[in-house]
């Protein structure tokens, strides 16, 4: 081994970010990419679901099949993004490995590319994961096909994948198992084996984004078990949309039993010169009770997440929505909690 980029994340170079739908995978993946790039690295953020969520998040037009710079990280780092498209990846792959550009065209004409990327089981996932792994292994001084060693520094300090949701993640990453049913030999199989080597290695970590809600937490627990079972490495739990507690525990516990110091609320409402102090105070008391129930439900979920046994980082709920500035804030929170180092 010769010189390398400084490695800020304990040897992990492929960060796969999964989670239940809508929990904040795309947001967390982007924030993680920003935090990994901070201080002068180049990080690739990869999207594999054809949703163009990254472009939208960074307020850009849809990304072509091309690595483009989408943001600067603090301290001079850069985040590039790529929306991987299975068809384009297949044509690229054919050309790279077989010099078969024309063949690719013939395949397209007969619907074979469509076939391979949408129906032929596993092939699509081999292509998508294969592209991410290729970027992980790519070194400066020209592209080399997977597996060919080089000693130039890596092009990307890390690759962050905005991955499919928890329910499909193990199957998606375990391309080998899937392809084994179809292609027992042949180049697709060889490629799948190489992809698996990286994905199963300590250089790949699968992070789970969750909310403090029952179902995302349950899916997380199931997903972590599945990932472990498939011989891959779970990374961190990213607990998203965490709201700070507004009341001390004893006040919440009492509120849950319907015991709120309404008189004290009335005094406060009066002090603030608001209208209808007693009605307002009653309303506030009801809101507190509902809030207390929610906090307790969240605490129960937190307990279950603790039992999953992975290091957790919290991301705050940002009530104003997620814009680029918010992404930097989230990236900072990840860095503070050690998720980027």
């Amino acid at each position, binding site marked *: 081994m010769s010189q390398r980029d400084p490695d800020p994340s304990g040897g992990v170079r492929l960060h796969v970010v999964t989670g239940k*739908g*809508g*929990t904040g995978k795309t947001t967390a993946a982007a924030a993680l990419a920003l935090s990994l790039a901070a201080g002068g690295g180049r990080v690739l953020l990869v999207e594999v679901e*054809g*949703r163009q969520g990254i472009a939208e998040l960074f307020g850009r037009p849809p990304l072509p099949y091309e690595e483009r710079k989408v943001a600067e990280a603090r301290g001079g780092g850069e985040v590039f993004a790529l929306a991987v498209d299975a068809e384009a990846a297949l044509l690229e792959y054919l050309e790279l490995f077989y010099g*078969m550009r024309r*063949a690719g065209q*013939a*395949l397209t004409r*007969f*619907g*074979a590319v*469509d*076939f*391979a990327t*949408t*129906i032929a*089981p*596993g*092939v699509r996932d081999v292509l998508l994961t294969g592209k991410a792994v290729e970027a992980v292994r790519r070194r400066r001084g020209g592209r080399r096909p997977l597996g060919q060693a080089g000693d130039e520094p890596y092009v990307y300090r890390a690759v962050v994948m905005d991955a*499919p*949701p928890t*329910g499909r993640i193990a*199957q998606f990453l375990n391309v080998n198992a*899937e392809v084994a*049913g*179809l*292609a*027992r*030999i*042949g*180049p697709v*199989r060889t490629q799948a084996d190489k992809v698996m080597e990286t994905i199963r290695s300590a250089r790949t970590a699968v992070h789970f984004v969750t909310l403090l809600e*029952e179902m995302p937490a*349950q899916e997380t627990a199931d997903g972590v078990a599945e990932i472990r079972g498939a011989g891959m490495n779970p990374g961190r739990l990213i607990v998203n949309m965490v709201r700070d507690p*507004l*009341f001390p525990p004893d*006040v919440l516990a009492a509120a849950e039993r319907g015991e709120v110091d309404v008189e*004290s*609320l009335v*005094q*406060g409402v009066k*002090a*603030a*010169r*608001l*209208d209808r102090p007693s*009605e*307002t105070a009653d*309303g*506030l008391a009801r*809101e*507190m009770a*509902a*809030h207390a*129930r*929610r906090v307790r*439900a969240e605490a129960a979920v937190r307990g279950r997440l603790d039992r999953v046994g992975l290091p957790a980082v919290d991301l705050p709920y940002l*009530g104003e*929505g997620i814009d680029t500035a918010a992404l930097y804030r989230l990236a900072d929170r990840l860095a503070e909690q050690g998720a980027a180092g």
Partner: protein
Amino acid sequence: MSAERLDVDALLADPGVRTIVCCGSGGVGKTTTAAALGVRAAEMGRGAVVITVDPARRLAQSLGLTELDNTPRPVPLPEAAEAGGSLHAMMLDMKRTFDEIVEAHADPERAREILANPFYRSMSSSFSGTQEYMAMEKLGQLRESGEWDLIVVDTPPSRSALDFLDAPKRLGRFLDGRLIRILGAPARTGAFRLLGAGVGAVTGIISKVVGAQALKDVQSFISSFDAVFGGFQERAERTYRLLQAPGTAFLVVAVPEPDALREADYFMERLAADRMPLAGVVLNRTHRPEADGPPAEEALAASRELEAGGEHPLAAAALLLHARAARLRDREAELRGRLTAAHPRIPVAEVPARAEDVYDIGALREVGEALGEAGPDGVPG
């Protein structure tokens, strides 16, 4: 602008409505809505069945579904029995559904061959879109059986909103398409040659990339499959027409967040373009503050003032809590306004966010009540 309210009870009571499809983007509450509609329909006296896709484990348990078994199971619901109705529920097992189609259409030996084919095995369990296709297939079967007054269909958390409409056609197209013909044609027959010189090259490349064995598996799968099914495409089209038919009502489920509403918007346009009968939108997880209280800005200012004064910490925190809730309500009202401006004629029903997840019959009933309440005379929040 206030939207027309979606009269869910009228929809559930209408004997002409035989199928309700709950669709929408990931995690918005499709499964919850479907199950709640099932409970409510049953308690209104209908013989209802709910096809769920990947229900949360505790929800499945409370519906009495302990395993994927692809057959409707009765949900004990005394209130429904009293009203002369019943509820059944099932969890969709896409592989099992696919296997059943094979078993129903092939002679036993051929069925065995297909079921053992590695290509079939991975396609039936992992092709993205198979789940969508199978949900529709199952719907078709239940509709044909004539056993149910009302079938409520939950849809899979698709990669994109369109998968669910496109997947059946796509699968059908492939299984009937040109490539399949080429791959399925016995090599070196007249028909094969007719297709032109490109064919040899195509099969050559495919075999080079995936290996000759895999190509053989595909070919043998296709030839037996083709003989069994004839027109997969036709089957897909029948399913598609079933969705367009009167008696089907689509509900687009959404939550009041910009992304989800954008997707809902997209979905509604797509349903209209495909002439699918959209009954309305279910706006799930809306927030209504417990009390009117002061507006967000005023509450926030009051909270800051009290905070600074230091004498009323409880009221300061409670006002902050209220300010957040009021701000959320304002934002949701604005989003809802945009939705109704864009689709003025689409009725909307609202379901408030609950403090806890929905995983028992009681909670489903309450969600159903919220849906029902949203009728034309219901009291808006």
